[in-house]
């Protein structure tokens, strides 16, 4: 009993600072979003507002064009997700089922691409987008977000598809399905958790994306949430209560989605290794 108690204490001592560090900004965000402007600047600051108010949450819709930002973000995130699914499903299937020359290299290539920071190529990317006269266009964001999310999605789906025994598909083919039919009626439904994980992950990626949105979108009515918050709510003077209230709304979407997906996400990453 003594040792387990000590161990427990040790774990707390190690983990507590990390928990505090990662939760602190979130707590500040929630706390500030519930304060009146006067209380925001009060010194010393308090964590729990003395007169909590939801006023900020109703004001933000008029202070900035938040509804439009939400709409644009949703459009980009859903579009990117759809595009990722459309491309990653066949790619992941091919990598899981077929052995072809360069397969190993391609898998490695995907992994390396995944690590590339967007900022390194933003200049070159801008010239390409400009050449296609696609600046200030939300479709550009869909394409770029999909492109950057694709490698991870393919990698994850390859693992999921590999975990479905090939014999199940072969049995379906002998029973009368074509290969495509067997894929769509066996492997894809059996990988449903993986598809959901990839979908939500792509969505979150596009939803949180800032750099491309900042670089390629100029018109105010086409701004997405990340840039909109940064540009308008925090432009002349930072109105912390509004900023934090909007940030909270944006974050809630991500947190809820991540909670839905986290179990499937780790399962997908392991699935490929198990075989």
């Amino acid at each position, binding site marked *: 009993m003594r040792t387990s108690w000590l161990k427990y204490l040790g774990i707390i001592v190690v983990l507590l600072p990390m928990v505090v560090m990662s939760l602190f900004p979130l707590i500040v965000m929630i706390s500030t979003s519930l304060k009146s402007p006067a209380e925001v600047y009060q010194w010393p600051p308090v964590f729990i507002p003395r007169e909590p108010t939801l006023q900020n949450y109703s004001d933000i819709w008029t202070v900035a064009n938040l509804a439009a930002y939400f709409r644009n973000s949703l459009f980009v995130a859903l579009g990117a997700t759809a595009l990722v699914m459309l491309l990653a499903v066949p790619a992941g299937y091919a990598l899981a089922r077929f052995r072809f020359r360069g397969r190993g290299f391609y898998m490695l290539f995907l992994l390396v691409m995944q690590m590339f920071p967007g900022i390194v190529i933003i200049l070159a990317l801008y010239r390409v987008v400009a050449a296609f006269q696609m600046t200030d266009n939300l479709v550009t964001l869909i394409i770029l977000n999909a492109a950057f999310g694709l490698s991870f999605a393919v990698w994850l789906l390859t693992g999921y598809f590999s975990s479905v*025994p090939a*014999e*199940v598909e*072969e*049995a379906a*083919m*002998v*029973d009368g*399905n074509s290969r495509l039919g067997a894929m769509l009626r*066996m492997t894809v439904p059996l990988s449903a958790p993986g598809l959901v994980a990839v979908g939500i992950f792509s969505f979150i990626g596009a939803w949180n994306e800032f750099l491309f949105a900042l670089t390629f979108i100029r018109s105010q009515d086409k701004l997405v949430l990340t840039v909109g918050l940064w540009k308008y709510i925090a432009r002349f003077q930072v109105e912390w209560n509004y900023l934090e209230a909007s940030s909270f709304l944006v974050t809630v979407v991500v947190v809820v989605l991540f909670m839905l997906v986290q179990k499937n996400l780790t399962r997908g990453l392991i699935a490929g290794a198990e075989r």
Partner: protein
Amino acid sequence: MSTVTCRDLTKRFGDVVAVNKLNLVVQDREFVVLVGPSGCGKTTALRMIAGLETASEGEILLDDQVVNKVPPGRRDIAMVFQNYALYPHMRVYDNIAYALRLRHTPKHEIDQRVHATAKMLEIESLLNRWPKQLSGGQRQRVALGRAVIRQPRAFLMDEPLSNLDAQLRVAMRREIIHLQRNLGITTIYVTHDQVEAMTMGDRIVVMRDGLVQQVGTPSEVYRRPRNNFVARFIGSPAMNLFAGKLMTEAGELQFRSASFRVMLPDAFRAARTSGDSGDVQLGIRPEDVAVVEDRPGNGTVTRGVVDLVEHLGSDAYASVKVGNEIILARVSPDIQLHDGQTVALSFNQSKLHLFDAATGESLLTNLPVVTLQS
């Protein structure tokens, strides 16, 4: 109901020849077993017949129709896989009904046939279960049901019993034999288990390294193995093989190894080795070696020291050390033998096998059968 024909069927994976010019005609209603060690190409051959692998060369015919380019779903064959390959997201009923649904069979007919099939296989009570809720034996039955319901032109079975425990395997073996006979459907069955091959097949095809070694009825393959590989592979425990020379002494044909010599029947005189060396292998199955009383005129071949006795209940096998060689003999379990005891051995002269040491081919294939099966 139909015949399956392979003509020079070949499969290459890069430089590896998995199946090399397989020629085989499986007659209507026949049960043919492809048997061989792992990697011998038997499964690849089956998968080509199913259409799951494309043939590199050669033809596959169902009846008179070349089906090389026909996709698996249109060949009207059914396959049972080693790991059953049930559809995990469908209940047992839907697993069995799937193929009929793909063929747009009317609903009431599907229902009737699913129940008839389930009844035959005694899985009626499982129709509402999911595959993961079934035991290995039950899954096997569902997999069979999925094949049987279609009344296909041929059954292909890829080691369907190898995931079952020993007792269940024997029971399912009998069921599959009955099922095949009752339905009269041409069947090709792949296994690495020579006991399954011997007990189930009307004919056996022994394969090794992609090449067919011998095709024949179980008794033909057992009694007249065409080469030393088949001789060792079929039969358990394996046949004794001894390296030595053929020579004639005082007009008598004999086999001489480093440790002992055996007089050979006159019929063996026609045997000719590929070279002039006279190097051969003599083969004899353990049941044709007897431990005898050591007295003259008793057919004694040699004497040796008992190394180990293994009791199987109904039989016992004695390993007898003669010089550097071990001779395995089947003995009555009632005989009291102890390790280190010196015993005399005799060979059944009519059950001897002789192989060319260089090629491994039997030297007896051209000899008249009567002299050998006396």
